[in-house]
Every structure is written in C-alpha cells, then in structure tokens.
C-alpha cells in the first residue's frame, strides 16, 4: 500500500511538474467560463424550465472541450515511460503491474478533478451576484458532478489503454481520441431513435452519455449509468493491465 501511494504521488506530481499542465488548466478555465456565460445568455433570452446547472452541462461548448481533454491528459502515461525506457527501472522495482496501472489511472483522475474544480465557483459566484440558486435542489449539483466524474473515469481508462498500446504519444492520443469520440457519438444514437420502438430506445439509452448527463444534472439519480461507467472503467483498466504486461513480456 505504501508503495502504491508512492507511485500515485509520483504520478500526480508528474502532472504538476510540467508547464503544460498550467496552460491546459488556464485554457480549460476560459472555455468552461465561456460556456457558463453562453448558458446564462441563452437562458436570459428565453427563460424556461431549464436550470443554470442543466444548461451548463448540456451544451456543445461543454461537450467539445470535454471530449478533447482526455487524450491530452492520458497520452503520456505509459508512452513516455516506454520511450524513455524508464519502464525498465520502474518494473524492476518491487511493484506489481496492477499497482502501476491503477496509480497512473488515479493520478490522471486527480488531475481531471482539479481541472473541473474551479467550475463549482461559477455557481457560487452566480448565487452571490444574482441572489438566486443555479438549481432547485442540491441533487442537481451532486448528480451533475458525479456524472462528470463517472464519465471521466471511463474515458480516462480508455486513454490509459491507448497509451499502454504504443510508445508514441501522438499515436496514443489519436487512438484515445478515436475511441472516445466513438463512445461519445454512440450516445447520439438514442436521439435518432426517439420515435423508434421502445426496445431500441431502451438499448441506446444504456450508453447515451448525453442523456445520462441530462438526467443527472436535473437531479435524477439512476443506478444503470453508474453501473455502466464503473464496470466499463474496470474492464478497460483490466485490458490496460493485460496490454501493459503483454508489451513488456514480448518486448
């Protein structure tokens, strides 16, 4: 356990040791702020049932940086170690392969959470300035942010897998981007089948990230997406573990 914490700490530090981290944080903050602003402008123009929280988490301006950010966060995880050869010193220290995979994954998750943390402030400031709540109930916040983390976990694990596949970071980023986009665009399927038979609609709902986010940010909690994202994350990490081991062994 101590070794795992050492590894995890090293991974987290690695993120914050690079100037690139702060550039990403800065631009991400700008983008999410722009998104928040756009949401408010739209709501001002035509007020409706939608809450500010719901508006924030369901726009193109939200999804666009959301999908783009994962390859950037994960591309170096394994690729860089392969390239520098540090994988050899790392794996001849008494650590398990699984520990390394989970430490790298959790390290990226911590950075991902740090990336999103400032967005909570938008809602606090909104309340300070307007004296109104951004959502009717606390469940909206909890739902939206827990979905943010759940989807984040799944997509980060895809990024880990892509990085474990190659020692070229650009290739890793491309693979991650392709896989994540595929998963994301699958979620649009459920909108095509809005009027289709109920079975098809049920089926597409299972992997429709956009619908999940919509429901959760309204404060509706559903166990199905939770189970879906958690199990997919574990499965992808399991694959990563095997790819990592295989690459090292065939070498």
């Amino acid at each position, binding site marked *: 356990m*101590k*070794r795992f914490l*050492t*590894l995890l700490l*090293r991974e987290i530090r*690695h993120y914050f*040791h*690079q100037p690139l981290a702060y550039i990403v944080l800065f631009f991400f903050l700008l983008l999410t702020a722009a998104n928040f602003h756009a949401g408010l402008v739209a709501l001002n123009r035509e007020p409706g049932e939608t809450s500010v929280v719901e508006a924030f988490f369901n726009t193109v301006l939200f999804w666009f940086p959301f999908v783009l950010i994962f390859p950037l966060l994960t591309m170096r995880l394994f690729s860089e170690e392969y390239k*520098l*050869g*540090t*994988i*050899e*010193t790392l*794996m*001849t*220290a*008494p*650590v*398990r392969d699984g520990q390394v995979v989970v430490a790298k994954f959790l390290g990226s998750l911590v950075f991902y959470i740090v990336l999103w943390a400032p967005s909570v402030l938008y809602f606090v400031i909104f309340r300070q300035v307007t004296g109104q709540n951004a959502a009717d109930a606390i469940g909206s916040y909890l739902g939206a942010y827990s979905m943010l983390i759940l989807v984040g976990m799944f997509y980060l694990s895809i990024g880990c897998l892509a990085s474990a596949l190659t020692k070229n970071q650009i290739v890793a980023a491309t693979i991650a981007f392709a896989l994540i986009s595929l998963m994301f665009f699958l979620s649009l399927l459920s909108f095509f089948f809005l009027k289709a038979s109920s079975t098809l609609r049920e089926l597409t709902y299972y992997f429709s990230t956009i619908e999940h986010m919509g429901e959760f940010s309204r404060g509706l909690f559903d166990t199905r997406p939770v189970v879906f994202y958690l199990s997919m994350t574990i499965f992808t990490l399991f694959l990563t573990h095997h790819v990592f081991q295989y690459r*090292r*062994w*065939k*070498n």
Partner: protein
Amino acid sequence: MIKVEKLTKRYGGVTAVDEIDFEVGEGEVVGFLGPNGAGKTTTMRMLACYLPPTSGRAEVAGCDVFRDSLRAREHIGYMPEHVPLPHDMRVNEYLSFRAALKGVPGRRIKERLADVCDLCGLVEVQGRMIAALSKGFRQRVGLADAMIHEPELLILDEPTIGLDPNQIRQARELIKNLRRHHTILLSTHILSEVEMTCSRVIIINRGRLEALDTPENLRSRLSSEGEVLLEARTDDPHAIAKLRSVHGVKDVVQTKLGDWTRFILHVESDPRESLHALAVKEGWPVRELTRRSATLEQVFAEVTQAEEQP
C-alpha cells in the same frame, strides 16, 4: 546468490539466450562478456525480473525470478543499459522516490540518500534537474539508484559505456569498493576492465555460454599456445629452417627490417631458451626475444569467433 539453470529466452523464432547455466556465489564480482547481440542484456533483464524466461529457471538470493518476482526484486539493484531516467525530477527527488518505491523505510531515506550521493559523487548535483546532467552524472545517478535499497546483488548492464577515460577509472574504483558489500554482475566490452575488477568471467556468444572461469585460467588456457618474437641480425638463408627445427616451434614468419630480421614464431610450449641457444650457436646478434602472453582479448576473440568461421 545467483543460480541459473537452462535459462532460455526466445523472441518469436529467434533464440536470444539458449539454455545457459551458471552460478554466482556471494561476494563475487562476475564479468559478463560477449559481442553485441550475444544475449547479455536479455540474460540480465531476466535476472532483474524484467523479462520472463521462455524456459529454465533463475534464482536470486533463493527467490525464483518469475514465481517470486517481487521478493527477488528486493534483493536486486539493477542498472539498465543507457540508464533511463525521468526528465522532470531533481536528483534527490528521484532517488528518494526510488528509495520509497523499493521499500526503504521513511526514516532511513534521508540517510541512504546521503550515503549513495556521497559514494557516487553526486553531492554537488543533488539539487539539479536530471535532464540537465551530463552523461557521467546520469550514469552515477543510475548506479546510486541501483544501490539505494542496499541490495545484496547489483546487476550493472554496461556501467562504463559512453564515459571518458577518467570517468571509467573512477567507475572502476567505485566498483572495486562496492564489492565489499555487494555481489556484482556486470557486463562490458572493455576487457581490461574485467581483468582488473572481476573475480570470474562469463563469456557468452549467440545465446550460448562459451566460457566460465577466472581471468587467469582463461588466459592460461591460451598460453600453452602463443607467439614468440625474435629479432636478430642474420643473413643466413636457412634461418627459417633452423628455427623450425627447434622443439616446440610450429611455424615461422620472417620480415626484413633493414639489417635486422624479425621472426614471428608460432609456438606450442615455451622454446625461448632453446631459441637463445640456437642464436648463440649461430652467432646471430639478438636485440629482442619476447613471448607475447595471451590477453583476455585473445581469449575473447578465440571463443567468440571460433564458430563464425565454418
């Protein structure tokens, strides 16, 4: 300390290491020699638990490197070829991280860090970024990392490659000092280094173990055969025939050097005394009569090239 039995590694159809057996006892310094691509690095990687063997087994300090890999790794300090290091850390940060990773208790990390920095001459660069270090210092950081958890066994893959002659001398001194506390297995191309530091030598070629002995024994293996150089002033046209008749001389090559003639004699035993007697009898003035003793270099060449000539 190390026990290797029929260790084999295949990559697809290529056999990199082919059923090698050897043992290394505690406190020994063993040199691992072989041409490039002979399987040195692969063998070392298997011993360091980085690669699993295809078949056969290897034990380090009583732990199987495959089945009991984690425990075996605690006994091993491994320095890979070219010393891969992360670029984003400072020397002391990196070494503390490695110490913690290898299970050095928190309260002892500082002490170990000071010890290895002192031993490897890293005190002056402790606070520097690894990316900014010179090759010589990077090598030392790698060595410091290998021994930070006080392993019984050090596996060093070409520890002196890419160093300048001064640094090589320093590295050699360092290795000599280390053998008091560690068993050492090191691979190198520099044969004089092996003769100076190692108590035993393993020569490996095309994945096969070709020789395993002390440097002295390996040399004496060749010294029954050798060369004798004789430079004498003579115009005797039958000189070669006369030299050939001396017992032990197999072949003679003659070169004219002005007044002098150089004979290179391939000999079986040591016929220098009889050669001297012959020269005296014939009245040839002699300015040189030497026996060229075999170096490890010759042993190496003999052992590794024997198979390449069909």
